């Protein structure tokens, strides 16, 4: 598995729409190879950052198409620091 981050342009996205897009397991874990771990939103500025664990980037892109949240960039994460723990992926 690999880790990906994406930055999305979602101008006009509302909290209600955000919730609706992620309201069921199948919406954040669409299949066994793709798990959306976290979605950060700055709805005022129309931006989202999503974090995904997937076998290949293509699987993450499938989810992005499904949500209709266009990504301006996608990154393959190879190093993580979380509350002092550093993980090399």
């Amino acid at each position, binding site marked *: *598995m690999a*880790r990906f981050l994406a930055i999305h342009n979602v101008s006009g996205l509302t909290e209600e729409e955000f919730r609706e897009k992620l309201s*069921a*397991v*199948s919406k*954040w*874990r669409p*299949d*066994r190879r793709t*798990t959306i*771990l976290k979605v950060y939103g700055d709805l005022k500025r129309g931006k989202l950052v999503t974090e995904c*664990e997937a076998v290949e980037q293509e699987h993450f892109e499938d989810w992005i198409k499904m949500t209709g949240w266009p990504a301006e960039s996608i990154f393959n994460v190879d190093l*993580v620091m*979380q509350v002092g*723990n550093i*993980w090399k*992926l």
Partner: protein
Amino acid sequence: MSAPLEELLKMNREEIQSHNERPTADELRNKTQTYYEDVNVGDELPKYIYSPTPTHLFRWSAAIENFHRIHYDLDFGLNHDKNPSILVHGSWKQSVVPQYLKDFTLPKGWPWKAAFEHRAMLVPGDTLIVWAVVTNKYEKGGMGFIEMDLGMKTQDGVESMPGSATVVLPLKDGADIPYPFVPPTD
């Protein structure tokens, strides 16, 4: 009426959950005996539906004192083992099979033997369907033997635990299955 496995797999997770046939403790205490003659080849046993959460996994880790971090520490599971999430314990899956067979056979029958493999990683968010289909039946030594295929499928049809089992049920005009159960010799 038990929904066929094939039908369950066409449903969404919430609908699948609504078909859970796992009996309550009271229902088990008052269960009517299923006799050998009541069972036919091709019958599907009741489906048990589980939707494990991180709380369930943590409770199981504590209960059996298995503190491997892949079962409760999401950061460790994701970043160290590269798993998709925290993982459902194989030992929990193993515990479901004897419970399932015991529930089916009690009060006077007994599970005899079961074998299965662990396949597929299961994670919180999965909906799990425990199923069994009768593949053969025969009488021996005044007892009724039921053979079955069984498993635990995910909502999207992945078989995570293919296996088989044999249970022993009393005949309608037969004696109770003795305890301890000793299989008849050929």
